[in-house]
């Protein structure tokens, strides 16, 4: 249903600016992850340095967005859907900022890994990165469109990234057992995988907040439908 506009056009504009800011921040974090992974798969450390250099911009945007949200809370005293929107926006900007930090972690590991011979061709990691980038995009789309089914899709995808992370971990464990020279590189790849898995957690966190925003119900600590169907 199309949301009616506020009587105050300034208030309407303030909320829209927060929404636009989150979309922009989301696009930058998504790009940071994909670039960090590109740097790893193409063994191009210059790209990784760019990701690290761009993080200040992300942090600045996060602070600006949070300040805007706090200003609306203080000056407009939002209620109902507006209150849920603002509290969700504050949480989302925090999630996105952390995702940005994790993209930097991946870029740092890429620089180290690129300086050594490649352990193996990367297969699951780029796949996981694509899923994770898609999760961020979908979680923000669900926020913009108040789309609960898309939020649920993100919640379900998080399980897939958990499984991939575990698979990568097991595979690298075999490498390390077979050749002790691979331990350092394997551990770094594990950290890349762990960072991607944590990014997926943050995307799920965004989806959980969208569910709260739309329904008023807190689902953060509930298992998603997929997890319920497939017990570990």
């Amino acid at each position: 249903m199309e949301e009616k506009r506020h009587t105050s056009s300034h208030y309407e504009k303030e909320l829209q600016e927060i929404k636009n800011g989150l979309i922009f921040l989301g696009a930058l974090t998504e790009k940071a992850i994909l670039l960090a992974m590109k740097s790893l798969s193409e063994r191009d450390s210059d790209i990784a340095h760019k990701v690290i250099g761009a993080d200040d911009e992300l942090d600045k945007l996060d602070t600006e967005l949070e300040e805007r949200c706090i200003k609306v809370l203080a000056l407009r005293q939002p209620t109902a859907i507006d209150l849920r929107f603002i509290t969700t926006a504050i949480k989302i900007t925090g999630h996105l900022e952390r995702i940005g930090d994790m993209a930097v972690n991946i870029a740092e590991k890429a620089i180290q890994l690129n300086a050594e011979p490649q352990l193996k061709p990367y297969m699951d990691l780029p796949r996981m990165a694509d899923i994770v980038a898609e999760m961020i995009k979908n979680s923000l789309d669900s926020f913009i469109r108040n789309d609960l089914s898309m939020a649920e899709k993100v919640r379900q995808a998080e399980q897939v990234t958990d499984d991939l992370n575990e698979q990568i971990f097991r595979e690298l464990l075999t490498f390390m057992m077979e050749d002790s020279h691979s331990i350092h590189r394997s551990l770094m790849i594990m950290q890349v995988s762990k960072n991607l898995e944590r990014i997926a957690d943050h995307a799920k966190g965004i989806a959980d907040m969208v569910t709260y925003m739309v329904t008023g119900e807190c689902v953060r600590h509930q298992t998603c439908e997929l997890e319920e169907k497939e017990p570990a």
Partner: protein
Amino acid sequence: MDSNIIIKLSNVNFYYGQSRALTDISMNFRKNKVTALIGPSGCGKSTLLRLLNRMNDLIDDTRVEGEILFEDKNIYASDVDPVEIRRKIGMVFQKPNPFPKTIYNNIAYGPKLTSTNHHDLDALVEQSLKQAVLWDEVKDLLSKSAMNLSGGQQQRLCIARALAMKPDILLMDEPTSALDPISTAKIEELIEELKKNYTIIIVTHNMQQAARISDETAFFYIGNLVEYNKTEKIFTKPDVKQTEDYITGRFG
């Protein structure tokens, strides 16, 4: 009637001449709770408030249909004395309206008129002013004119005056809209305190005030009760879109 319910409205309609101001209102007011009535101007909230102690009787060419039960009796039954109803269901208005008398006599006036037992008046004046958290400010000024008090003090005096009649319910029609923020905060604090002993029904245009002080909130629109729920629910996730549009400022 459930013992937690102090007033029960069943299918109440109210007319000013031919024009219907309230349509088929059924709702219960709970004892020792603060209930806020909200809605845009002309939605019928003040009309409803005035119905509860028969203040609308004073307006010509008005008509009530349905039933308003208070203590299991319809307050509009022919054998009910409206003056007695107004004693049990007191009212505080938007603008402080003290009598042009001394502070003492503002409080004592009502009890003097309705009771033959006058020797406890001093105690009653003190108790009422204490309940309205005004005693410390005026205890040395009891023989001075109430008109010299500040707006906020005058409003608390009006509350004390209503309390002196020992009502069960206090109706408040935008009691702080003419007051500064400090006086407003004092009245709000007082309302929190009073609900231990009284049931309070308040009409307010101030959304934040409704959110701050009430336990339950009823939203009215063009004479209809749109949504009636716990205040926390109304201000975080109302069930009805129209309520949400109103409280978030999307109306009109």
